[in-house]
């Protein structure tokens, strides 16, 4: 998805690093292999970027300058077109999938705005109006009350136990992570997808993708870009 933009902007000084938040490593590897990326394509089974940067949904982009300073904290990042947009949802799909795709059409994304800002920063660096001050980067990053920090610890424990094959124990900690960070979509969707690839209702979890998106309203799935 990002290779096209990388081809355009790498000669102008930008490197792209993708990080797959996937406890199912093979699933991420298949997608990456098919995309034939020239940039580093990493796999983050335990969602460390949530803890380290404050990511809570995908796709999220973080801009880092030549000196290693963050100039934009995590925000919705789309490479010129949105994966959610379809010209037409086919009729012959299973009802759950069809309902999910129809809901996804209502999700707001702003790919053109994002890529225009990215190009501006690549060409103008610190002179770009989109490069934020250090104070603003911190201020715009996600607040982390102690409950959120506890949620991160439970998620890491859950992923660790899942990897060890202790599925029931993992579910307990996934549920705690969901309770403590209710608006973290990577924590929820990861756990749901391990129980049901379609992220539909299951016995293990109270929520599911369609119900949770409808609860907040699809238009609020991503915050508006502050650009």
């Amino acid at each position, binding site marked *: 998805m990002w290779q096209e933009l990388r081809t355009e902007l790498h000669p102008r000084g*930008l490197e792209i*690093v993708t990080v797959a*938040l996937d406890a199912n490593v093979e699933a*991420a590897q298949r997608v990456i292999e098919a995309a034939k990326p020239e940039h580093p394509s990493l796999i983050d089974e335990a969602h460390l970027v949530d803890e380290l940067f404050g990511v809570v949904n995908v796709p999220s982009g973080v801009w*880092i300058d030549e000196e*290693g300073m963050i100039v934009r904290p995590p925000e919705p990042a789309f490479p010129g077109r949105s994966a959610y947009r379809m010209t037409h949802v086919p009729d012959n799909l299973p009802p759950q999938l069809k309902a999910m795709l129809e809901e996804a059409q209502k999700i707001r994304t702003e790919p053109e705005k994002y890529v225009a800002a990215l190009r501006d920063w690549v060409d103008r660096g610190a002179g770009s109006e989109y490069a934020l001050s250090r104070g603003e980067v911190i201020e715009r990053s996600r607040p982390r009350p102690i409950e959120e920090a506890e949620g991160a*610890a*439970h998620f890491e424990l859950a992923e660790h136990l899942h990897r060890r094959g202790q599925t029931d124990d993992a579910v307990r900690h996934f549920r705690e992570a969901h309770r403590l960070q209710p608006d973290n979509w990577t924590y929820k969707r*990861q756990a749901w997808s391990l129980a049901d690839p379609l992220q539909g209702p299951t016995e293990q979890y109270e929520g599911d993708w369609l119900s949770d998106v409808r609860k907040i309203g699809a238009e609020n799935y991503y915050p508006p870009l502050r650009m």
Partner: protein
Amino acid sequence: MILETLDLDFADLERRTGWAIRPEGACKDDRCVPLPGDGSGATVDARVLAERLNMPLIHDEQAGVWALGPEGGGRALQSAQAPELLLPDWRGDEVRLSSLRGQKVLLVAWASW
């Protein structure tokens, strides 16, 4: 950070969280938080560190492991300095985010699910 024991190895701690144990305490970026002792040795008690840095320490007794979470009470980014990120690429080779210094970087989190 997953712990099999409460004796937290300095090097493991720094690699995973960026917190380094020095004579003046636990230090990261331009911050230092005093710890008991003089920073000598190779390990620190995870309970003491967690309390001083306001990090949750969650124990799963059955599994016999702990998880040390990030510092609570502030923001996800306490500094604009990009944290070190050490992860395998899709072929299994370790990559350090800091190895890309000197270029602008767009870090993109995505998922196959």
